[in-house]
């Protein structure tokens, strides 16, 4: 039996919805593994339910009543005869209690261990681990700050601007910047308050605030036999309120030498927790200096750009790793070909301060052609629900270099028709037409410019 004909699992439950559920199901189909979808009341007729071989209803429309119900998802896996669970991203994908529930039920979790998730879930703990492993972190503290007086002392020793971060911070919450001593009390108490409210942990630490860094992250794969490789980096600098909107690979500001160096840093970071599965080391790039920011212990939304430049199916690798197989790819065999860009097509109106637009889709026509990939969760006539993430599709293109990929993306955006909800299609077309984008800048000024955003109205 050749490697291609090994069936890693008989049946895999996909504990997610929308485009990522469909993305995972596609690879399961290629590998002749049966798929099980789960769905809420609102998703009864959704595309991921239709695409899967089996589907199990797990509860009401709000995620707390369905996609976040560990008990119902485990029960669905057992009743449908699944032998493993793929979590996708978001929802339960980084919840160590879910991993332990799988283990207790005798199901394979297609992802890292609960202990690796816990180690990386606390930002402060992750900083300590990285320092011990020799991985560069943004200059700052490794101990919790007790009170406003200690916060001021920390700020004075680091220099301004300084960032106060909750240990559980993520998604732009639990993060405040002080530009002067007079800002420190409010920044410290604000970060602690959000940490408590959103992550149940008021612990705060301080680090130097980098004003306009690039967000560069490295994709890694680690098997159960001690091999860890990286699949190069992605640049995700185009963000609004810490939400990524455009991602590309390779990163425009990373040389071959820097690529090799940050790849080694990412491998060291993954090894420090005995990490297994696909994961991402997120960092900040300030000039040529790369700093560890956090590790995401799951597949990421933007994984397709890495797949486009390397030819590696990251979901297939996750399945292979979870089944106990060694990595088939050595570091030297990981190729880097051309340039890929992903635009997140959210149901949001950029011209109205990114107002969500959960409105039923009318016409829906995807672009196609050489080097164009659409990972979508919707079809013509589908409802877009207010309970779920605004990401309805991802448009990904590949071409031989960044300029050609930009031209291909602009053409594909023009060929993408979605009527009904407001979407980010016109925003992306406007952004990728700017000189700032062509020059490979972060475009942070444009994303903060209300007048420019209003001018993108489709």
């Amino acid at each position, binding site marked *: 039996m050749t490697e291609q004909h090994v069936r890693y699992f008989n049946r895999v439950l996909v504990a997610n919805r929308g485009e990522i559920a469909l993305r995972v199901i596609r690879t399961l189909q290629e590998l002749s593994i049966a798929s099980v979808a789960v769905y809420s009341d609102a998703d009864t007729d959704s595309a991921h339910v239709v695409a899967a071989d089996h589907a199990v209803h797990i509860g009401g429309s709000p995620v707390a009543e369905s996609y976040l119900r560990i008990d119902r998802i485990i029960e669905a896996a057992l009743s449908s005869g699944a032998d493993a669970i793929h979590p996708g991203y978001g929802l339960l994908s980084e919840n160590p209690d879910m991993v332990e529930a799988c283990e207790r039920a005798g199901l394979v979790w297609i992802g890292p261990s609960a202990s690796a998730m816990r180690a990386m879930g606390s930002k402060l703990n992750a900083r300590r681990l990285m320092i011990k492993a020799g991985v560069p972190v943004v200059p700052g503290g490794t101990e919790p700050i007790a009170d406003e007086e200690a916060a001021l002392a920390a700020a004075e020793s680091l220099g301004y601007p300084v960032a106060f971060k909750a240990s559980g911070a993520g998604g732009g919450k639990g993060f405040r910047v002080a530009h002067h001593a007079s800002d420190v009390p409010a920044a410290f108490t604000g970060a602690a308050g959000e940490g408590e409210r959103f992550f149940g942990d008021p612990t705060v630490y301080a680090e130097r605030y980098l004003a306009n860094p690039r967000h560069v992250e490295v994709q890694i794969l680690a098997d159960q036999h001690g091999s860890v490789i990286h699949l190069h980096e992605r640049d995700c600098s185009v963000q609004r309120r810490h939400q990524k909107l455009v991602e590309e690979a390779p990163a425009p500001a990373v040389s071959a030498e820097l690529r090799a160096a940050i790849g080694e840093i990412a491998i060291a970071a993954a090894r420090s927790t005995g990490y297994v599965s696909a994961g991402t080391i997120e960092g900040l790039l300030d000039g040529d200096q790369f700093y560890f920011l956090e590790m995401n212990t799951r597949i990421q939304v933007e994984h397709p750009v890495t797949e486009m430049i390397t030819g590696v199916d990251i979901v297939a690798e996750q399945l292979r790793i979870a089944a106990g197989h060694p990595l088939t790819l050595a570091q030297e065999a990981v190729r880097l070909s051309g340039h890929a860009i992903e635009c997140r097509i959210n149901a949001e109106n950029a011209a109205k301060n990114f*107002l*969500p*637009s*959960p409105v039923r889709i009318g016409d829906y026509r995807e672009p196609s052609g050489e080097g164009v990939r659409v990972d979508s969760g919707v079809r013509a006539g589908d409802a877009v629900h*207010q309970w*779920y*993430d*605004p990401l309805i599709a991802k448009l990904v293109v590949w071409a031989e270099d960044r300029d050609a990929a930009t031209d291909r993306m602009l053409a594909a955006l023009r060929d993408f028709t979605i009527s009904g909800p407001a979407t980010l299609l016109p925003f992306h077309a406007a952004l990728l037409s700017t000189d700032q984008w062509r020059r490979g800048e972060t475009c942070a000024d444009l994303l903060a410019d209300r007048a420019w955003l209003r001018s993108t109205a489709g």
Partner: protein
Amino acid sequence: MSSCVITADTPATVWKVLAGEGDTVSDGDTLMILEAMKMEIPVEAEQDGVVARILVAEGDLVEMDQRLVELV
């Protein structure tokens, strides 16, 4: 002074009602917060005035253009 009804800009769930009937409010004050697609959407007063009626409760599902708050 003319009265004014503030409506929902998007289908959403009412997450938090911050204003109470009888409150005096200023243009730009946040009266309630809606939630849709994991985003918080503040509903602001569009003029100075007094909250005459709150037409929805926390947890309610609201449609686009549904009436939320009446100011006088």
